[in-house]
């Protein structure tokens, strides 16, 4: 009896201990799960950077886009995952006193154009149609890979747009506009086609907040440089170049991003505070209601940096020496040579041949429907007027 009692005591103690350990394990599981829920689930990063303004005096819009390009490349997104659209060429513009450079700070401190830049859509290719095609993926089959946004449902995409805008629209190259409704619909198409996991939309134009008012797809966070009714102002002119170099909002965003490195833990709340009204003169706005996570848990590098899968290996590979290959093929050449007759180059200007060549006969195409119809009408009218008895004289 006492033994069974002891046993039962031990058993209960044992089960209590087990339950306790299970409980703690379960608690840590739940914590892990909770952490996982707040961490972003993306596996790759893309960036679409668009400058929509043409002409030399809009230098600052190109400099804005290139400074975001530079930050995004520095933080790890490769060129193959960036679609850069610049509506005009400022670096090699005849009016640029320092060719092949685009500066963001006056006194030419920082050349954001750099030496390793890949512009995917340039000059006349930056149109509303091409932009929407890139976003939705509906591009003609012959488009090269560098001009496509090949995102999937685990991609975090950063979309940055700058240029001249108004209440509800953004102007492309002084000839067309994109409205906030079109943009919202394009994002909805992207959501329906599962082309993004999370999307960060930044716009630096006048009345920029109107562009994100109409979004209705989930997982979109938006930032704008000014509210409806306000203008976004430019930062500082450079007397040597003669134009304003950057817009204020993007200038301060660039300064903020220069402090970030790929391992930073800075979150979106800091980005929201970037340009207060005292520095920017306009009031930057943001919209997070469509976004599922709390902005304070979203890292800057979730959008501006890149997730890379790296496998470290310690085995060594020996490469073969080239000279062996070259010697062996030398011998092969000498052996097989005497078989063929010598080939020759074409004559660049064979005058005699050109003078006597006949012009190529164009392929004969049968007459089209219009011509046939016209002749049928003429013949019908003729026979109606003059009677069918004339037919035997014609045919």
């Amino acid at each position, binding site marked *: 009896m006492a033994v069974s009692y002891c046993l039962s005591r031990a058993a209960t103690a044992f089960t209590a201990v087990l339950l306790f350990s299970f409980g703690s394990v379960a608690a840590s599981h739940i914590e892990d799960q909770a952490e996982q829920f707040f961490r972003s689930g993306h596996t790759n990063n893309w960036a679409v950077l668009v400058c929509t303004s043409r002409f030399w005096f809009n230098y600052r819009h190109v400099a804005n886009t290139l400074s975001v390009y530079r930050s995004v490349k520095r933080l790890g997104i490769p060129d193959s995952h960036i679609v850069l659209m610049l509506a005009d060429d400022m670096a090699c513009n005849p009016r640029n006193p320092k060719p092949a450079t685009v500066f963001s700070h006056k006194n030419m401190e920082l050349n954001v154009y750099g030496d390793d830049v*890949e512009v*995917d859509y*340039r000059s006349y290719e930056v149109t509303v149609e091409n932009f929407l095609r890139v976003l939705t993926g509906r591009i003609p089959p012959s488009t*090269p890979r560098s001009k496509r946004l090949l995102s999937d449902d685990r991609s975090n995409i950063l979309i940055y747009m700058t240029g001249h805008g108004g209440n509800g629209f953004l102007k492309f190259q002084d000839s067309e506009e994109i409205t906030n409704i079109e943009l919202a619909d394009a994002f909805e198409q992207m959501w329906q086609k599962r082309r993004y996991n999370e999307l960060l939309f930044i716009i630096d134009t006048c009345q920029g907040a109107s562009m994100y008012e109409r979004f209705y797809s989930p997982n979109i966070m938006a930032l704008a440089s000014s509210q409806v009714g306000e203008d976004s102002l430019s930062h500082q002119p450079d007397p040597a170049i003669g134009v304003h170099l950057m817009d204020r909002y993007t200038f301060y965003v660039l300064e903020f991003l220069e402090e970030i490195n790929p391992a930073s833990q800075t979150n979106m709340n800091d980005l929201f505070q970037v340009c207060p009204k005292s520095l920017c003169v306009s009031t930057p706005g943001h919209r997070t209601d469509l976004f599922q996570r709390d902005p304070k848990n979203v890292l800057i590098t979730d959008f501006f940096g890149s997730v890379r899968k790296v496998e470290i290996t310690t085995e060594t590979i020996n490469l073969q020496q080239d000279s062996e290959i070259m010697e062996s093929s030398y011998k092969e050449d000498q052996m097989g*040579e005497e078989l063929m007759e010598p080939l020759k180059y*074409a004559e*660049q200007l064979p005058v005699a041949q050109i003078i006597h060549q006949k012009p190529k006969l164009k392929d004969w195409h049968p007459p089209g429907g219009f011509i046939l119809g016209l002749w049928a009408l003429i013949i019908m009218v003729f026979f109606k007027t003059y009677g069918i008895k004339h037919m035997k004289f014609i045919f």
Partner: protein
Amino acid sequence: MAAAMPLALFVLLLPGPGGWCLAEPQRDSLREELVITPLPSGDVAATFQFRTRWDSELQREGVSHYRLFPKALGQLIAKYSLRELHLSFTQGFWRTRYWGPPFLQAPSGAELWVWFQDTVTDVDKSWKELSNVLSGIFCASLNFIDSTNTVTPTASFKPLGLANDTDHYFLRYAVLPREVVCTENLTPWKKLLPCSSKAGLSVLLKADRLFHTSYHSQAVHIRPVCRNARCTSISWELRQTLSVVFDAFITGQGKKDWSLFRMFSRTLTEPCPLASESRVYVDITNYNQDNETLEVNPAPTTTYQDVILGTRKTYAVYDLLDTAMIHNSRNLNIQLKWKRPPENGYIHYQPAQDRLQPHLLEMLIQLPANSVTKVSIQFERALLKWTEYTPDPNHGFYVSPSVLSALVPSMVAAKPVDWEESPLFNSLFPVSDGSNYFVRLYTEPLLVNLPTPDFSMPYNVICLTCTVVAVCYGSFYNLLTRTFHIEEPRTGGLAKRLANFIRRIRGVPPL
């Protein structure tokens, strides 16, 4: 037995040296060269050429091993059955009059011409797809090439490589004059090079210097060539060329001394280890005459002479693969210095200031014999205020004639004369030295017809405006502010009128 079998297997598996795994060893080689040509106008032209020759057959299917030949272009040749491809991007224009004939000129903008092989069935479709792929590779808007800007030349643009028959049906040519060349086109071009701006001549390719030029042209040429002098087999040749012309005034600050560092802001440090030849040629023809000498520093070890473009030229050769060259100094900076005798010209120029002083240009020049010298100056007339016009502005504005004061060598030596003895017509100008005489000549004055404003317009405008104001505004003003009274007809004689007059004075209502 069991131990012997694995041993046998082991022996079997050991590969011999030099590749049983390579089915067909394909050799490719790289040659790079830079030609520096001082131009007659004081500028310097630099032409880079990188040639990768790939000894393999014309048909490209099934090849997957690329060594020096870039994979991007090799796959293009295979997929679109290309025979030749020539693509160039140019900014500027080669001024043959000032710079002499070019090695290879290209039109401003982008030019693409391609010969397809005769196995291609739909040439237009391949052409369209090819231009799209190239626009992705070179970051250019070549996708705008379509039937509206493509032609099929029937007599020119014969293939530059090996060809047995040339049916022009397989040739397509397009030019996009609006295409801009900038760093984004140079970057993929550089990435096609085997040593890719890390070693050899390609370290000099820095965008911020290459685009600060009067002429910049980069091109890619692919064609089949003879493998050797006997020409029994074919190799693919990829030539990447880049020509730039550095302007003496922009880059050189007016001085004609050039060096690699001044042109490219870099010097050559080591040769490309993958190159079989890496040379720099400097054109030193015609510069050893009495007038001026060109000194090249460091002194070249060898020179090369040949007939190029119709004239005999001499080049100083610097071989980067020659170990002595690089070991002497750790970098190679070729300098060109001009040693000229002191100038015996003189120029004085005083620019004009509006309403203060005119332009003044004085030049002392020595005219070479049997030549024609033209001097021209461009100027602008400032916009005049309306009070500064003459009453007859449509006559035009006069520009004062130019003056030429010359010392002309005389055929017969003159003796100095005594002014009092000789006739008056012989003593206009003093003669110091009998071998030449002084003469002063004038050109015609220039009458320039400038656009004149219409001086009657202020009067017309005032009349019209006043009329409009008077009629419209005046009428409205009257309608709005005038009140109308009904007036009784006047009755009564003079007495009544006088009485009314007195009553009005008193302020009493009239009768």
